[in-house]
């Protein structure tokens, strides 16, 4: 809103100046137009560069989707090296219980998960990836299959991961999970 007001003030000021400097306006306007056009072209080029990664968007989508699927397949093995590679050292991870942990907390939980849910397996569906230069947002539904007291159970979680590419390597810098109720209801704020 502030920007809109500023824009209006700028427009009014520009109009007043144009009226006052009528005789000299023509030549200066041509220069101004050229400057504005050059600026717009530069901004458009910057925007284009921001949207178009050096490797194609499709490659980024393929890479992070593969990373995600490989990671989920490896989780039941509780291989700490896999977790260590997947999550960046500065990751911010929020569990479905609303608790936020750092990398050390994730690594500590590998053994806890293995002890509590030794038979659980994980897969991803309904995956959306938005690639940006060295950043990719991945949103998906995590499906957890588990066996509890001999009974098969399935739970669903909506997850968002933020992948960042540094030194040629994609890693997760943010992750959050929310349990999906069997019948999602209201879209209340949160």
């Amino acid at each position: 809103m502030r920007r809109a007001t500023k824009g209006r003030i700028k427009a009014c000021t520009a109009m007043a100046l144009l009226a006052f400097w009528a005789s000299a306006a023509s030549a200066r306007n041509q220069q101004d137009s050229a400057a504005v056009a050059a600026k717009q072209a530069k901004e458009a080029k910057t925007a284009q560069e921001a949207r178009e990664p050096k490797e194609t968007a499709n490659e980024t989508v393929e890479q992070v989707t593969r990373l995600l699927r490989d990671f989920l397949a490896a989780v039941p093995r509780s291989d700490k090296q896999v977790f260590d590679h997947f999550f960046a050292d500065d990751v911010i991870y929020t569990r479905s219980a609303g608790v936020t942990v750092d990398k050390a907390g994730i690594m500590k939980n590998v053994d806890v998960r293995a002890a509590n849910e030794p038979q659980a397996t994980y897969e991803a569906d309904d995956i959306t990836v938005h690639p940006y230069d060295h950043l990719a947002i991945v949103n998906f539904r995590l499906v957890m299959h588990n066996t509890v007291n001999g009974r098969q159970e399935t739970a669903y979680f909506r997850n968002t991961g933020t992948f960042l590419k540094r030194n040629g390597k994609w890693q997760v810098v943010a992750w959050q999970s929310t349990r999906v109720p069997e019948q999602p209801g209201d879209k209340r704020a949160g």
Partner: protein
Amino acid sequence: MIRSRNEVTSMRSVLMMLRDFLAAVARGDKQVFESFFADDVIYTGSTGVRMDKAEIMNSIGVHAANGSKATYRAEDITVHAYDTMAVVNFRMVMDDENEGRRQTAYFRNTGTFLRRNGQWQVVAWHATEIPTNS
């Protein structure tokens, strides 16, 4: 921890945006939502439902129609700034009133901000309700 000037500037920018946004949510100010969320944002609400920008914008009207008097604030904020993007994690406190009784709910949120053409906007947002007993 030593931070670069760019990092500090980015952190300040997104923190200011976050506080302005939360203050504006209660007013249901569509212009603030419009500039806060990028057109390609992926938003996951605390019920696990994913929304796009159009659905976020529609939900503003729903809140207003419900006569919600809720106010929102952020605490326990962490910002990790990287060049043209930043990750913000915080606990959102929602104060509401129901039949004359004050109610407070807590949500852990993560937002990913991206700077394009000099403007910071949210490209991913995810909320998880924190159970009251935790």
